[in-house]
């Protein structure tokens, strides 16, 4: 059985490094496209202010990009270093999108990002514009393949367990790529990145306008940010709803936890706007509900029920019981691959094998599990209701706020009054951190909500961890915390410095 301290520390390290990495990713996604748009305007109109805009925002993009690259390597290494059993168990499927991401996307963005900075004097205008677009396309393709990999953890389609190699193996690459969860996650995540880029550009432009500096420059930047941001913010919420629909199909437990819905409601289910989840007593207090809404989001119907936590746990208990013969048969097969009877049993119960593995947390041989242990294992599939309930609501609230912010900005823009609106500019400036909060909460809901599974229904997290010395993980965790804090300070310091320098003189210090 896994050392619980090792498990918790490994999870903490993964969560910390992943959330840190995702401070940089959405800005890269959003800014790369904004840079490409600004430079397109420059090439089409020939007005140099648009090139200056591309260069100024490009400098900030460059600092952020380096941090994204640096912290991204940690993510790829970490599956092997800290989640070795996971890597062995699902590498046959999960490794494929990661490798293709490197080949198809990351090479593209990383190769051309150098030319973006160094190519201004060596390339024609059109060539440079193409380079900028390739960086943006590369970043977005990169997100696509990573999210295909991530979606497979939430909804492991196109794969089958092979007892002879003791792992999951790929059956259909098409099913993995066209996983419905991957499709909606991709669009939702890149749109969130675009919103982040747009809020970033808008907030800093607002600051320039409030200070009365670089007003021509800032007004144009704000115009691009507001228009792009409005479209993106609408897309995030609409496609986030698509995410909800696919989660409703494949991850019913996550939806039930997000809704803190302990019991199935008669269709169509209502959506709880406010409530106080009480996980200890398995109930939710002080509920305020909107009738019909959840049923519409999660099932796109008025007659299908959305199952509650108690009902889902009861289903899980059946699957655990059904998985135990598979586990026992697998043990026989590993000892004697020629055991045809065991192979037949495993084949007929293989879809529930992962559920039997949940018992390994409580008993070393699942075949000897008591009903109480099966009950505990079944209840262990309920993620942390309070975190999911509130994380989701704050994220959605912020999503609606972005639509309002950009819509109002767009309205003001059409009346050409944006720099005469100090209150709006103040609001825009102070909105700067909000897209990051929303994005991090989004990942919290998606990944914390996946627990206790590493791969939903296939491999529990506690079995996925590397069996290494706990002291190693303590040291690396402390190292990451210290190291990443220093990097964050340097990163923010440099960004602030270049923002203060402003667009017309980004080179002053470099000259010194």
């Amino acid at each position, binding site marked *: 059985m896994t050392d619980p301290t090792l498990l918790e520390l490994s999870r903490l390290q993964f969560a910390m490094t992943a959330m840190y990495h995702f401070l940089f990713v959405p800005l890269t996604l959003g800014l790369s496209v904004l840079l490409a748009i600004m430079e397109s305007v420059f090439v089409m109109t020939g007005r140099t202010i648009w090139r200056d805009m591309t260069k100024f925002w490009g400098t900030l993009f460059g*600092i952020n990009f*380096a941090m994204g*690259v*640096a912290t*991204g*390597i940690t993510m*790829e*290494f970490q599956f*092997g*270093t*800290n989640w070795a*059993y996971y*890597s*062995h168990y699902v*590498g*046959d499927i999960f*490794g*494929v999108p*990661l*490798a*293709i*991401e*490197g*080949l*198809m996307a*990351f*090479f*593209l963005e*990383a*190769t*051309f*990002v*150098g030319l973006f*900075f*160094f*190519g*201004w*004097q*060596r390339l024609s205008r059109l060539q440079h514009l193409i380079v900028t677009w390739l960086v943006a396309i590369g970043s977005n393709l990169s997100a696509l393949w990573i999210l295909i990999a991530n979606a497979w953890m939430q909804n492991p389609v196109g794969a089958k367990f*092979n007892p*002879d*190699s*003791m792992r999951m*193996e*790929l059956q259909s*690459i098409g099913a993995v790529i066209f996983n419905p969860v991957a499709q909606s996650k991709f669009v939702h995540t890149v749109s969130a990145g675009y919103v982040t880029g747009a809020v970033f550009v808008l907030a800093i432009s607002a600051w320039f306008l409030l200070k009365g500096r670089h007003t021509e420059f800032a007004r144009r930047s704000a115009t691009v940010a507001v228009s792009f941001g409005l479209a993106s913010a609408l897309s995030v919420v609409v496609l986030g709803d698509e995410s909800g629909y696919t989660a409703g199909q494949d991850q019913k437990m996550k939806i039930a936890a997000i809704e803190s819905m302990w019991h199935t409601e008669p269709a169509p289910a209502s959506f709880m706007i406010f409530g106080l989840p009480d996980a200890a007593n398995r109930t939710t207090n002080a509920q305020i509900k909107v009738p019909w809404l959840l049923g519409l989001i999660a099932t796109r119907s008025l007659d299908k029920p959305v199952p509650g936590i108690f009902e889902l746990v009861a289903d899980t208990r059946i699957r655990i019981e059904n998985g135990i013969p598979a586990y026992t048969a697998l043990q026989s097969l*590993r*000892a004697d691959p020629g055991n045809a009877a065991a192979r037949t049993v495993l084949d007929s119960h293989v879809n529930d094998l992962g559920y039997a593995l949940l018992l390994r947390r409580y008993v070393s041989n699942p075949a000897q599990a008591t009903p109480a242990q099966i009950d505990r294992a079944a209840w262990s599939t309920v993620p942390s209701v309070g975190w999911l309930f509130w994380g989701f609501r704050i994220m959605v609230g912020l999503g609606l706020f972005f639509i309002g912010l950009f819509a109002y900005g767009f309205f003001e823009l059409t009346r050409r009054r944006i720099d005469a609106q100090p209150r709006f500019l103040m609001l825009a400036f102070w909105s700067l951190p909000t897209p990051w909060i929303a994005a991090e909460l989004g990942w919290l809901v998606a990944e914390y909500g996946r627990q206790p599974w590493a791969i939903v229904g296939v491999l529990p997290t506690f079995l996925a961890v*590397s069996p*290494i010395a706990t002291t*190693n993980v303590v040291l*690396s965790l402390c*190292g990451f915390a210290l190291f990443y804090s220093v*990097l964050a300070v340097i990163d923010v310091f*440099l960004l602030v410095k*270049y923002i203060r320098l402003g667009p017309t003189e980004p*080179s002053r*210090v*470099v000259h*010194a």
Partner: protein
Amino acid sequence: MLDFATLKVIWWLLLGVLLIGFAIMDGFDLGVVMLLPFLGRNDSERRIIINTVGPVWEGNQVWLILGGGAIFAAWPALYATSFSGFYPAMLLVLAALIIRPMGITVRSKMPEERWRSIWDWALFISGLVPALVFGVAMCNLLEGVPFSFDSEMRASYAFGLFHLLNPFALLSGLLSIAMLSTHGALYLAIKADEPVAGRARSVARSGALIWTAFYALAGIWLWRSGYGMIITGGAAPGGTPDPLTKSAALSAGAWLKNYQRWPTTMLLPALGLGAPLLVAAFSRIRHRYVAFALSSLGIVGVIGSVGVSLFPFLLPSSSYPASSLTIWDASSSHRTLGIMLIAVIVFLPIVLAYTSWVYYVIRGPVTAGQIQSNPDGNY
């Protein structure tokens, strides 16, 4: 589709291609930053040095990321066991790989001398540590590392960082440092303006000789030590990958047997030994591109010879030889190897094409004048 055994061999070759691609492309970046504090005697020279890799280091680093991803996809058991087994070493490499992008990006963005000096030395370490660790890891493969699997393929390890740092492995680490410094110096000889280029040429000459000497020494050590392992039964090349179905045993001198079996493979150690000698000669007569190509061939020889020696082993277990990972039992499924091969055939030529175009666009040496005239773009 190709049969399973053939695909495993192709993916073994591709593993070599990716590791060699990393060592050649990112290797000169590592070499350049290792030499930074020594070849750049003032701020302007140091900025020239950093800017020789400025437009390309991000792309080069992807060779490592792709290497990691490809090992994950094609050799999941190898990825799982080596990355977790070498945990402290991998974390050191990771720290270095995070410092390097940061250092290159932020170093010249502040005017203070102290700031720049700290980053110069940080960059030096960020080149030295991966070079050392990758060299140390290579030789540990030849020595074998103590690990085993239970029937569920759950690994246990009986080694720590200090087990890895034994004399043979340290020699290999120094070889790796000499090799990549030479390679980086040859890149600087092409891409940097004088006087940095001149200094780089002389470093490359001495570095190449040290490289030859260390490689020869490591070869003798390997021969005298009698490291080696053989498969004694059960591993069908076309079989379902499961390391536990085979048996294997230590066998003195087995790592040199492949050269007798396939004499043409002797070309690889010959390149590892001979190419750096020619590098020393050619960099004297200023054939800079020839010298760089030769050092790339030398890298092919050094890494290739480790691969051929180990074949068909990937990660031998010194404590439980039967748990060793070989190319027949550590690969992905037939289908995954096939799909990944198609992806490589489609995308790798495209990658090589646009990478070449980028090098063409930024051709010519980096001069102090260029850095002054393009302050926005340069590091």
